[in-house]
């Protein structure tokens, strides 16, 4: 059984069936890619996983525990971090502070009244955050306001914020969109490196097939809210159903 189990999940927005009977099993310590045309329901699926949306029916379990009905911060504390399609960062804070916050959240839990301790004295946490910034190659930008970063840098920062928490499951929604080619390659290397260094499961949504085929060990193709095929990358390439989905035909069951 996978670390993440999605069973029979349905979600409607008015007349639109955004997710229709989605079943997905992500094995522990693998990179699982979810691909599919625009509007296929990929982000919606992640929204269900992190507690942003409650599905109409179905179950979602992480490491044997149900995720549904939990608040987003509780789900994160279970060990799930997410990089959003449009970067969600603390724009008014510095890059360094952006990375410090997840460090504190990881160490202190969802709330702690640490009003009299001083950030400057938290040498261990500062060190962790600084190392993370070095890993994503942003150490020279650590005093910048995060809101002033380029789109690609915002994305890398958000990834750093997730990675620094050492999540057990990392959800990435188009992590390289808006990045220059070189940064995309760096991101691939970074994720591979992290993967090699420690136990982590990743679910990655990506339109860039170079990224998908560099990282993924398994791929699920989603079209119009329903998984079309799931297989290893070599068998997904050139799969007729996949071609069909991307060409926009609706011939599937």
């Amino acid at each position, binding site marked *: 059984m996978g670390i993440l189990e999605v069973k029979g999940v349905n979600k409607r927005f008015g007349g639109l069936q955004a997710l229709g009977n989605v079943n997905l099993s992500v094995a522990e310590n693998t990179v699982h890619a979810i691909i599919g045309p625009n509007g296929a329901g990929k982000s919606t699926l992640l929204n269900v996983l*992190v507690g942003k949306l409650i599905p109409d029916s179905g179950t979602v379990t992480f490491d044997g525990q149900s995720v549904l009905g939990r*608040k*987003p*911060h509780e789900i*994160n*504390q279970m060990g799930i*971090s*997410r990089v*959003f399609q449009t970067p*969600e*960062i*603390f*724009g*008014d*804070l*510095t890059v*360094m*502070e952006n990375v*410090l*916050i*997840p460090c*504190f*959240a*990881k160490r*202190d*839990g*969802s*709330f*702690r*009244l*640490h*009003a*009299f*301790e*001083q*950030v*400057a*004295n*938290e040498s261990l946490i500062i060190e962790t955050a600084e190392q993370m910034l070095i890993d994503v190659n942003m150490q020279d930008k650590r*005093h*910048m*306001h995060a809101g002033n970063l380029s789109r690609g840098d915002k994305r890398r920062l958000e990834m750093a*914020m997730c990675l620094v*928490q050492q999540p057990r499951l990392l959800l990435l929604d188009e992590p390289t969109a808006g990045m220059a080619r070189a940064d995309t390659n760096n991101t691939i290397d970074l994720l591979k490196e992290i993967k090699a260094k420690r136990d982590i499961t990743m679910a990655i949504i990506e339109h860039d097939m170079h990224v998908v085929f560099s990282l993924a060990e398994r791929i699920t193709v989603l079209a119009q809210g329903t998984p079309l095929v799931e297989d290893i990358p070599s068998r997904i390439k050139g799969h007729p159903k996949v071609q069909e989905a991307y060409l926009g035909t609706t011939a599937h069951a």
Partner: protein
Amino acid sequence: MFGLEKKDAALLLIVAVVTLCAPILLNPFPAGSEMAQFNAGYPDLMQRFAIYGIFAIGFNILFGLTGYLSFGHAAFLGVGSYSAVWMFKLLSMNIIPGIILSVIVAGLFSLVIGFISLRRSGIYFSILTLAFAQMSYNLAYSVLTPITNGETGLQLSLNDPRVLDAARTTGSLPVTTLFGAEMRSATSVQFGVWEWQFSTGFYVSAVLMLLALYLAIRIFRSPFGIMLRAVKSNQNRMSYTGLNVRPYTLAAFVISGMYAGLAGGLLAAMDPLAGAERMQWTASGEVVIMTILGGAGTLLGPIIGAGFIKYFENIFSKINDNVLHDWFAFLPDGLNDFVVTVIAPFFGDGWNLTMGLMFMAVVIFLPGGLVDGARRIGRLFRRKPAGAKRPDAATKPAE
């Protein structure tokens, strides 16, 4: 020093020196001179600077850091005053129990109001706090008369039990003290043409204000402080990072409520009476204006804003037509009358008008408040060569 970074310790030290020398610094004009009316160095006003400084420092922890704009903080000020006066009536004229109770009661009160109001954000939160404060005001004014003495306000009386200082009862109303030192007692010092007044009440308020500022600095620089700024910046990201937003905002709300309670308790300690008008919405609005005028989210802004407004309220408002006629006495009669008629609405009772215009100017041209203005001027004077970076400029919220 005191567990503060060098820069913050220096800031605190400067504020401490300025505050403790306030009786001298605020009386720059020789006693009896024409300009003496602009002297602000009398105990009653200086106390108000310090006390409203505390009020605004606390308000800034909520508004400046989390961005939650409360329009009901005067309720906590009022509750603090009532609590303190009750302590003076029942227990002792020593201000310590009164002030402690006012902080506790205001804390509990803000816990309840915050718990409910923080279910909403933005304008709805503001309206909820405003509604609660107006409700408190009306209750204090009428329904709760047995506790608040309604319209008249809560005052001391000779029949109060005052269990701890019963032995010392004399025929007249007692005065507030700190272990025997009377709040209203002041020493007048003549120095050349100047006259300075050093009062116990002011120094008690000033020390508490410095303590309040010290705690605020610690909060600003704590992990908790970063979390509060994160609330303002992106609550979604906070939740998905594993942080529960609500208790953080509630804690900020209660802390700022306790600051307001302290200020209210001190107001009563300086002058032992409490009235419902202290809770009115205008009083809530005043602290908003103080904070924004001085610079929301900065350490010094609220103190400067509070000082500014209290100075205008007490000094500017005294400039009446006669004074204006005096000023322009050098002009020929007709012109003198004309000038005075034109500018009179901005002086005296019209100080609100001037204040309002200034506030508008600051909000439009200096969104960072007076502190931001001062910083811009400072930068103008020590402009570094182009391209020079200030590496630590963005690491901390400005002082």
